[in-house]
């Protein structure tokens, strides 16, 4: 907002759990005030699975994510600039977050070569050689104009060990400085540094401390959700939230399974994103507290209940499992209907988390949730341990 002195991001804690590190806040961004903890649905190419912006608003979705790598390739930076940014291009009035394009490196690693300058890779679209530098990533993200943007980080696969992890951690800090220097819209866009350091507590600590010296308005925890064990995952999250400043939002990248969200909220994470809820919708998988329903399954042929009778989304209010089963692989409408439900499920879960934190009953919520999810009481050990570390004891 030009002419206004207020920073591009302010975070205010509204309530906290008296036992765990869980907290509720409000993150004010140029385009929307976002209630945290928040789940951000992923709209890779400037759209989410056939849904209109109105439908996302009706779901009370306050912020969505776009992928810099994909958007920078198509429609490309020039069209995005001419359109006046991604908000206008896709007609989305609320908040946006863009990644740096760095994560795509891990998935395209066989094609990529990482140097101090940046990442060189072959475009999977046309095979041409591209160089993604911190400056270029920042330039694209400035053109996209998301409320929150990510620094380009040197991502190593989370199971990598040895000196490469340390190199990546230090390089990430150097790249952060280059991103911040190249950033031209600090008045209405906030760059999040990304805490790296693999699964090494010392490196994580160093990374967090180096980033905190840069005095950013929010922080991301990166390099996780890439195949490491859950036992290692939660410890890195726990350690990072202990170090990061309490008055700033913390974003754990790539997390979106319901049980992970519930645990990470207890560990004090405020923001999440994941392609899973919308990607799985395309294959006819609907999310419920007990897990997921594969609507393709013949068992649903004559099941005339909604996906979830507790859900108030437009899909559950009108359509039965039997009907969805009948169109799930053949009609695009099925993908939209299940996507609406899955996004509604994620957002409702976050709403339940927030209200129980505000009422200071979060530990009870966690226990109830886990009981429904693992009805035989066979809790995964990592969940027991992670929750135990913040004072929540599962029976």
């Amino acid at each position, binding site marked *: 907002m030009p002419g206004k002195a207020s920073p591009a991001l302010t975070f205010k804690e509204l309530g906290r759990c008296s036992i765990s590190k869980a907290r509720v806040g409000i993150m004010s961004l140029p385009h929307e005030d976002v209630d945290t903890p928040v789940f951000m649905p992923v709209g890779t190419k400037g759209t989410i699975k056939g849904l209109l*912006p109105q439908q996302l608003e*009706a779901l009370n979705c306050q912020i969505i994510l776009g992928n810099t790598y994909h958007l920078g390739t*198509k429609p490309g930076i020039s069209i995005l600039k001419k359109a006046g940014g991604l908000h206008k*291009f896709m*007609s989305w009035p609320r908040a946006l977050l863009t990644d740096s394009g760095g994560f795509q490196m891990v998935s395209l690693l066989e094609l990529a070569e990482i140097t101090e300058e940046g990442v060189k890779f072959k475009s999977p679209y046309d095979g041409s050689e591209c160089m993604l530098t911190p400056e270029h990533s920042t330039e694209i993200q400035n053109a996209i104009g998301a409320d929150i943007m990510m620094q380009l980080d040197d991502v190593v696969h989370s199971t990598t060990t040895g000196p490469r992890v340390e190199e990546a951690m230090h390089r990430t800090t150097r790249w952060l400085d280059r991103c911040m220097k190249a950033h031209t819209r600090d008045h209405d866009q906030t760059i999040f540094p990304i805490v790296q350091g693999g699964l090494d507590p010392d490196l994580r600590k160093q990374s967090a401390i180096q980033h905190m010296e840069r005095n950013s308005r929010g922080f991301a925890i990166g390099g996780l959700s890439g195949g490491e064990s859950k036992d290692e995952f939660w410890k890195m999250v726990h350690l990072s939230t202990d170090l990061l400043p309490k008055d700033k939002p913390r974003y754990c990248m790539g997390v979106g399974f319901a049980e992970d969200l519930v645990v990470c909220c207890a560990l004090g994470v405020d923001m999440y994103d994941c392609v899973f809820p919308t990607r799985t919708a395309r294959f006819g998988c609907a999310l419920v507290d007990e897990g997921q329903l594969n609507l393709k399954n013949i068992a649903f042929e*004559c099941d005339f209940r909604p996906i979830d009778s507790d859900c108030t989304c437009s899909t559950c209010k009108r359509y039965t499992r*039997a*009907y969805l089963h009948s169109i799930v692989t053949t009609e695009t409408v099925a993908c939209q209907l299940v996507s609406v439900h899955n996004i509604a499920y994620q957002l409702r879960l976050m709403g339940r988390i927030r209200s129980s934190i505000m009422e200071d009953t979060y530990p009870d919520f966690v226990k109830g949730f886990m009981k429904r999810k693992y009805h035989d009481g066979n809790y995964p050990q990592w969940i027991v341990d992670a929750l135990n570390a913040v004072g929540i004891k599962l029976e």
Partner: protein
Amino acid sequence: MKFLVNYSGKCGRLGVLSDMCNREGETFLTPFLTMYTRGGNVPHITHEVLQLLTKENLLMHMPLPNIMTVFPSIGASGQSVSEFVGLKEYPSYVTPQDPGIETPSGYNKGDQIAAWTKNGKRTVDPLKYMNMVEKLKPDIYLALCDGDTDSDSSKKRVLKSMTRTSKLFRECYNHHKASAALQSVAILAPIEGGYDLNARRTTSEEMAGYDVDGYVFDGFHTNGATAEIISCDTLEPLVRECLERLPKDKLRVIHGAWHPATLIRLVALGCDVFDTSLPYLSTERGSALVFPFTDNMSQYTPLIDSLKISEKEKISINPPYEISMDDDVHKEVFQPILMDCSCLACKQHTRAYIHHLLTSQELLGKVLLMIHNLHHYLEFFRSIRTAIKNDSLDALHHLVQYHRRPL
């Protein structure tokens, strides 16, 4: 069901369709469109989006081939087809064939009619068809028929289609009259006869003898895009022949993705009901309907002129009533599909965005196209009704027929 013709102009007629079973107070002003569905829903459009698209009452057209595979579920639910598919507020209409997709020719045998489902060929005979109709509980349906004829059909094929349809229809009709469940359901009779004037006359005279709620002029094409290329000059005398021999107070239905100018001439002859297969086909081609139907629009539409038509567009065989939105020419056009269109896609989104979505294989591209195309077509029908009232259907035809994109 009641149908009342309340105005017959120089060209075309206006009517009111009302009193469909269990839908008191709901009316449709004719000429109107049945809403084409696939698997029970408007293609690409959920109920939530449909409410944003139009508040009009719509007759949901459920072609048997794309609803048949879920028949066991519907049967077990005990619900009507409208209820089962989540559109209980809308009346439904069942036909044996699907106007949105070309029907493979040559598969009707004896009293078995081929229905091409997503799982391949299924066959239905009159008893099976009527049992399904009783379970689906539509508000209107067309009796089983063999409409597998087009302008290339031999005399023998036309004759076969007529005699088979005659037999199939009689069985359906007798079943209908004896069925308690179907007493308040409207039945339509098929009028076959291909492109043979005598055959059309014979069938019409035969069908005029039955107590039905209306007639469907069938057998002019084999559905899908095959309807788009039919010239109205060949069609007109045939339809006229049928109309002269059928009672004037009954509903006249003709299905297919007609060229909009052809459709207006069918309206002028006195046809009352059409369908939305053209907006669907256009959407599937990645195209937007842009033909003008008001003077105001015809001023705006040439905006296409200001764009450079790319080489691809020049050599393509796109019908003149639509523009191909995946053409690169739209890549940087930050304008709506049509300047003065009030649909949600045009009010909120640009050609550049829709082009981006279509060329990125994103679902929203077709959602937006379908919103625009259906809106455009529904508005087109509004202007058709107004033109009949004002006796200006000729002028409307002229606008639609002779408007050409400058190349």
